[in-house]
C-alpha cells in the first residue's frame, strides 16, 4: 500500500541572511563606557570604540544636533563595523540612515537634493496620530487553501467583544501575517486597519484552563468591551522626509502627470519645518535627531562638502558620521590635495576617530566570531592557518575563505574545517597581492596590453 504523501505546507518564517556585519550587535561597552576586549561582536579597536561610545551618549541625549564625526582608518579595520555598532545600540526608535558616498550621484536628482533627503531621513518626529483599530477576542479562524496548492487563499476571522461579534473577510496578506503570528482561537488581538499590523495582547481569561501547557510569557487579558472598531491614539515615529513626501505629492488628477522623480520643493520643506516646530512647541510632537552615516565619504565632491558645511549649521540637523579609508588625496571636483579628500574647513568641524590595524590575537578572535556567525566549525590548526592568512593578506580575504572552506568541507562530508580545506580554497581563490603578482607576470598575454602600460602610469 502506497501511502499518499501530503504536500508540506511551507510557512514563511524568515531566514536571516548573513551580511558582512551581521555579527555586530552593539559597541561592546560597559556602563562606564569602558570598552570590553570582546563583546557584542566587536573585537579590539578599544580607543575608537570608546570614542564612538561618547558620541553615542551625545546622540542619545538628543540635545546636540549638527555634529559631525569622521571615522578614518585603513581598509578592513572596522570603520563600518563601528558605525553599525552605533546603529545597533541606538535601537529601532532612533533613525539611522546609511548611504555610500557614491549613491548621491544620480541623473534624476541633484546631488544636494539627494543629500538633503538623506539628512531629513535621519531626523525622526515622534507624533500622536489617531488610527482605526479592531480589538477583540478571536472566536474562530478559518483559512481555506485551494486543493491544488496554488492560488489565492480565502479566510474568515470571527472576532468578539463582550458585547458583539463580527465576521471579517481576510485578504492574502492578512492570512500570512495571522499565521506568522500564530494567532489562534482565544487570543485577544488588535489589528491596525490601515496598515494591517497585528499585535497579540494575550489569551482571553475565559479560555484559561488548568491543564493547558503555556509558555511562561503567556499573558491573560480580559475580553475587550464595547465595539470592535475603535479609534485610538498611537505614537509613532516618522522621518521628516516621509512628511515631505506626503505633502509634496500633487493632489488630484495632476498627480498622474507629475511622476515621482523626487525633487521636493524648498517651500514645502520650509512649511513642514515650521509646522514641526509648531507641534513641538504645542507638545504634540517630539523631534529625534538621528544619525546619518556616509560611507566612502571621499567620493563626495566639492559642492557636496560645501553643502554639508551649511547643512550642519541648521538646527534641524542629525549627527553626521562619515567614514573614509583615504589618506592625503585630491578633493573630488578640485585639484587640491587634502587629508582624507575632505576640505580643511569641513575637517575643522569634525571629531575624528582613527581605527588602527588589528593585531594577530584580534584577527583570530574576529575570525572565530565570524565562524560562529556563519555556522562553520574550524579545527584549531585551521584557525591558526587562517589567522596567518588574515595577517598576511587581509582580514576580508580570510573571512571570505571561511564560507568557501566550509563549503569544501561539507562536500567531502567533513564536520570540521581542516587545514587541507583552507589550503584548497587558498589555491582556488587568489587574494589581492597574489592576483597583482599574477598580473605582473602574465600581463603580456592579456588583452589590450599595449595600452595598459600607459594607462597604469596615470592612475
Amino acid at each position, binding site marked *: 500500500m502506497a501511502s499518499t504523501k501530503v504536500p508540506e505546507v511551507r510557512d514563511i518564517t524568515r531566514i536571516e541572511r548573513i551580511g558582512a556585519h551581521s555579527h555586530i550587535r552593539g559597541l561592546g561597552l560597559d556602563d562606564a563606557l569602558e570598552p570590553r576586549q570582546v563583546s557584542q561582536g566587536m573585537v579590539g579597536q578599544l580607543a575608537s570604540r570608546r570614542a564612538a561610545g561618547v558620541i553615542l551618549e551625545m546622540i542619545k541625549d538628543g540635545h546636540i544636533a549638527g555634529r559631525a564625526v569622521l571615522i578614518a582608518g585603513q581598509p578592513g579595520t572596522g570603520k563600518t563595523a563601528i558605525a553599525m555598532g552605533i546603529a545597533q545600540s541606538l535601537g529601532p526608535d532612533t533613525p539611522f540612515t546609511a548611504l555610500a558616498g557614491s549613491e548621491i550621484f544620480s541623473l534624476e536628482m541633484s546631488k544636494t537634493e539627494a543629500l538633503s533627503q538623506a539628512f531629513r531621513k535621519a531626523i525622526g518626529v515622534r507624533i500622536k496620530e489617531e488610527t482605526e483599530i479592531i480589538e477583540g477576542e478571536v472566536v474562530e479562524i478559518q483559512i481555506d487553501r485551494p486543493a491544488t496548492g496554488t492560488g489565492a487563499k480565502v479566510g474568515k476571522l470571527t472576532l468578539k467583544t463582550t*458585547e*458583539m461579534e463580527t*465576521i471579517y473577510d481576510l*485578504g492574502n496578506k492578512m492570512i500570512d501575517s495571522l499565521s506568522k503570528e500564530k494567532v489562534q482561537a482565544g487570543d485577544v488581538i488588535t489589528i491596525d486597519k490601515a496598515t494591517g499590523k497585528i499585535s497579540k495582547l494575550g489569551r482571553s481569561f475565559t479560555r484559561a484552563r488548568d491543564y493547558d501547557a503555556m509558555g511562561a510569557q503567556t499573558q491573560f487579558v480580559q475580553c475587550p468591551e464595547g*465595539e470592535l472598531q475603535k479609534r485610538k491614539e498611537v505614537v509613532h515615529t516618522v522621518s521628516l522626509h516621509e512628511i515631505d513626501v506626503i505633502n509634496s505629492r500633487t*493632489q488630484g488628477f495632476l498627480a498622474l502627470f507629475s511622476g515621482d522623480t523626487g525633487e521636493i520643493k524648498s517651500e514645502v520643506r520650509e512649511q513642514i519645518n515650521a509646522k514641526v516646530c509648531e507641534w513641538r512647541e504645542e507638545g504634540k510632537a517630539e523631534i529625534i535627531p538621528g544619525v546619518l552615516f556616509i560611507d566612502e565619504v571621499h567620493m563626495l565632491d566639492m559642492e557636496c562638502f560645501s553643502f554639508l558645511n551649511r547643512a550642519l549649521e541648521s538646527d534641524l540637523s542629525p549627527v553626521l558620521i562619515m567614514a573614509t579609508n583615504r589618506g592625503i588625496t585630491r578633493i573630488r571636483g578640485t585639484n587640491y590635495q587634502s587629508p582624507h579628500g575632505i576640505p580643511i574647513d569641513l575637517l575643522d568641524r569634525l571629531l575624528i576617530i582613527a581605527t588602527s590595524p588589528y593585531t594577530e590575537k584580534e584577527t583570530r578572535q574576529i575570525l572565530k566570531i565570524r565562524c560562529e556567525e556563519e555556522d562553520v566549525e574550524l579545527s584549531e590548526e585551521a584557525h591558526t592557518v587562517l589567522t596567518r592568512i588574515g595577517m598576511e593578506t587581509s582580514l576580508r580575504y580570510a573571512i571570505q575563505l571561511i564560507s568557501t572552506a566550509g563549503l569544501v568541507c561539507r562536500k567531502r562530508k567533513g564536520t570540521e574545517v581542516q587545514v587541507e580545506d583552507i589550503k584548497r580554497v587558498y589555491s582556488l581563490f587568489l587574494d589581492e597581492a597574489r592576483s597583482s603578482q599574477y598580473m605582473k607576470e602574465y600581463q603580456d598575454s592579456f588583452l589590450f596590453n599595449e595600452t595598459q602600460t600607459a594607462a597604469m602610469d596615470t592612475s
Partner: protein
Amino acid sequence: MASQSWMDVLKSAKKTALIHDGKRKIHYLFTDGKEMVEEYDLKTDELIVRKWRHKSTLGVQGQWQVEVGEPLTSSASTSASDVIKENCSNPIFMRKDTKNSFQWRIRNLFYPEDVFSVFVEPSERCIIIKTSNKKYYKKFSVADLDRSQLPLDGSALSFAHANNTLIVTYKKPKEILSLEQELLKELKKLKATAEGDVDCKTQ
C-alpha cells in the same frame, strides 16, 4: 446661540454648488481644511448624503467619512481588500434622515425584536444599541446635535424592527429644524452650475 455659531461656520465656508442627477450637490471647504459634501433631493429637499473628509496631522488626504447616506462601496479601496474587511453578512449601519427626524437603519440583523435595546447615554452624548444575545453593539453620536451643542433627549428616541432591519428614529428638535430651513434657503441662493464640469482652478 450655539446653533448660531455652527451656522456661522457654514456661512464662512467656501461653497461650491452643482445640480446633477436630480440632486443639489454642495461642496464646503472649511477654513481648517476640512471638506464636507452634502447632496439634497431637488424635489423634496431631503438630505440624501453628507460626507466628510479631512487631512491627518501629517497631511495625508483621508478617505471620505459618510455621516448620512449609503456607505461608500469599497470598490475604490482595492488595496485595502488585501488586508481585512467586514464580511458582507455583517450588519450594515447607515443614517438616512427624514424631514422631521434623524433615522438610522441597520440592515442584516436577523434577530427577533425583543433582543434589541436602544437607549441614550447622556454622559457620553451618544445613543447605544445593544443586543441581549451579544451579537451586535453600536455606540454612535448624533453629529448634528453635537455641532449645535443640543442635549440628547431619551424621549425623542424610538425604534422598530422589520424585514431584518432595525430602524432607530430620533425626532429632530425645533432648533435643528429651523437651522435646516435657514441653511436650505441659503443654499438655494447659491448659484449652482447646472450639469457638466465645475470650472476648477488649475493648480
